[in-house]
């Protein structure tokens, strides 16, 4: 198996930043878990618990093969042929993920740039992603670090401004809790929040091997999932208490509707432009990491240098994002289908099978020859 040739390394904090940006990416701007009405914030916390379980599987595989990518240990565990086929499937899945998230960002921008073709907006966005991929994971990690700190500080400012806006946050709108029992909550977790955004963490099986201190991987991932889950749940909680359930369900991008309500002292207001900028930065990292996973997956499978594959992958992702859906309704509808039918296969089923097979192989003593 091909080892990581370049000596690219990222620090635990850079990994943490990347995971945070990735998890918050698009999930923070779309109405998440609203099928559970005023209990939406709970579905995110439960989804997060599922996310931790899933990440434990990825972390187990990573700890067993700390030097290999997902595509690498798949062909070790499942054998060359099956490993290769599944590898291709994963690459396609990652490109699809990148395309979906790119489209999410474009739809948000199109709300403000209503006459600009989204194709043009797409070129700009994917151009930046392509550039980041050329520079490699180390650069992406450092950029992530800077942006994470910036976004974190502005997020805190945003929260304070929201809380100081008079008559804006009405906590009693989250009542009654569990009006229709637990069923709608679990249904929403299954249909949405477990996979989105937490199941998408599978991408990080392509980033973890670059960690300069492999032992910290699991801990960093876990902390980041917990922190991001709590942040998303808090945002959704605020969305419910600011907008109310009926408005939240009607809204396409509730984070923006909520930001428009910020109004401190009649002069700090209309911050939606700043919120859009922040969300688009998050979205950039999400698209970049999905494309990076596709890129390093395919370069590992076909033994081609990464830089040669950047442009094809980025172009496919751009075109796919434009052609996967005719309009915004079809895009969101397809998202629902993908979350219940496609994501579970790649995020849960295959990694789980990998882990089980690996445990059995270990039990049978297969891996004596390659463990050092």
């Amino acid at each position, binding site marked *: 198996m091909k080892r990581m040739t370049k000596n690219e390394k990222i620090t635990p904090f850079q990994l943490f930043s990347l995971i945070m940006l990735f998890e918050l990416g698009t999930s923070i701007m779309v109405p998440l878990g609203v099928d559970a009405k005023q209990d939406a914030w709970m579905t995110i916390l439960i989804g997060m618990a599922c996310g931790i379980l899933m990440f434990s599987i990825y972390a187990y595989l990573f700890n067993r093969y700390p030097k290999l990518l997902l595509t690498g240990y798949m062909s070790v565990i499942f054998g060359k042929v099956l490993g290769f086929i599944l590898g291709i499937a994963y690459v396609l899945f990652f490109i699809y993920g990148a395309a979906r998230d790119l489209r999410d960002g474009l739809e948000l921008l199109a709300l403000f740039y209503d006459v600009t073709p989204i194709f043009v907006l797409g070129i*700009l966005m994917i*151009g930046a992603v392509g*550039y980041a991929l050329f520079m490699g994971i180390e650069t992406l990690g450092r950029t992530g670090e800077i942006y994470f700190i910036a976004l974190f500080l502005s997020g805190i400012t945003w929260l304070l401004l929201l809380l100081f806006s008079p008559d804006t946050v009405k906590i*009693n709108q989250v009542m*009654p809790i569990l009006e229709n029992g637990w069923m709608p909550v679990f249904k929403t977790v299954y249909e949405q929040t477990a996979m989105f955004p937490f199941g998408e963490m599978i991408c990080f099986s392509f980033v973890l091997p670059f960690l300069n201190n492999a032992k910290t991987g699991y801990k960093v991932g876990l902390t980041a999932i917990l922190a991001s889950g709590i942040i998303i749940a808090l945002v959704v909680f605020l969305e419910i208490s600011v907008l109310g359930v*009926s*408005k939240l369900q009607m809204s396409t991008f509730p984070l923006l*509707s909520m930001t428009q309500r910020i109004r401190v002292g009649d002069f700090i207001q209309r911050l939606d432009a700043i919120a859009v900028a922040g969300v688009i930065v998050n979205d950039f990292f999400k698209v970049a990491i999905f494309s990076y996973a596709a890129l390093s997956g395919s370069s590992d499978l076909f033994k081609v240098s990464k830089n040669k594959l950047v442009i094809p992958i980025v172009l496919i992702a751009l075109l796919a994002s434009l052609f996967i859906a005719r309009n915004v309704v079809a895009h969101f509808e397809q998202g629902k289908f993908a979350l219940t039918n496609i994501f579970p296969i790649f995020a849960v089923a295959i990694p789980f099978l990998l882990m089980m097979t690996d445990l059995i192989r270990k039990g049978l003593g297969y891996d004596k020859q390659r463990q050092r």
Partner: protein
Amino acid sequence: MKRKFILPGIVIVLSILVTGCWNRRELNDIAIEVAIGIDKSGDQYRVTSQVVDPGEVAAKKGGDRTPVITFHATADSLFESRRKMTTLSSRKIYAAHVRIVVIGEELAREGIRGILDYLARDHEHRPDFFLVVAKGTSAENVLKIITPLEKIPANKLYSSLQTSERAWAPTTSVTLDELISDIVSKGKQPVLTGLEVKGEQEAGESKENAQKIDTPTQLKFSGIGVFKDDKLIGWLNEPESKGYNYLINNVKSTVGHISCPDGGKIVLEAIRSKTKVKANVKNGEPGIDIRIKMEVNVGEVQCGIDLMKPDTIAELEKKSEQRVISIVQQSIHKAQKEYGVDIFGFGEAMHRSHPKYWKEVEENWDREFADLPVQVKADVKVRRLGSVGESFLKKEKE
């Protein structure tokens, strides 16, 4: 070699694209709209736009023309009629700075459902404007009145609605989001504040209206309009409107009087007020408990009462409690018996605390509401007496 071309290439392409000139609109190509008026005209909507004349509002200049202009257009839908206005206006109308939307009473009585979606959907509108109903007149007439003090009538309406809400509490500012969620909600019916033209319509339309000391025609907020779903069904008078604001915990400050034991009046100023609405179900019977907590200062004394005695203060507190309770009960009575619609959101309070019971009555909540027993309790504390202790009226008597 390749790199040499890629980087400058990206830079050139980006610098062309990132300038953001795709759909630009220069400031001198747009007409800034500050108020929208919507009326019914047969089956169609008649839309009035109040647009600022920038030359007139500018600090130094300002000549013979009026500071604002109105455009009218009639079409089947709001959006169409607003675009139709371009046949009248030399500039495209830009709606992001709208402060107030006025709905004609006739349209309000027929139902406002049809106009709200457009206001919410178009991304150019920012959802921070207020909606009001033109009481007894059309929205068009209201927007034609020239106002003193503020050059732009829409700004006068916006600030006067906010100021009266804060200092006197007979009006309530309603934003689009609140209105829509009240229409959607089964546990609360919407309200909108009324706006009247006081004086002669004709006189108010010319610039001379603002050139006299005693403005002949004025715009006045008066009372709250009660809606059933999206249709206006009646009005609350001023004390009832104040009661409404007490009930939805929207009183920031207000002034009210109580009578002295031996004739005359004492006026109290509320400086803080908080209302808690609690819904309960006892033996299957619903009920609402209301607790109003207020802090008041003495604002005006017209009788020889001894304010320095703690007993007097206690007496004052008791009397003003009764007064607040009676104001509140008056507006509950009106809503229950005359209009039969829950404008106070008691249904939502029920939904929050007793979701199971709510499921049973949700569908015909307005009928339940009409016979709902409501307990009102008030707790008033007199804090300060103002800059004079004992009134000179007391001294005079001695």
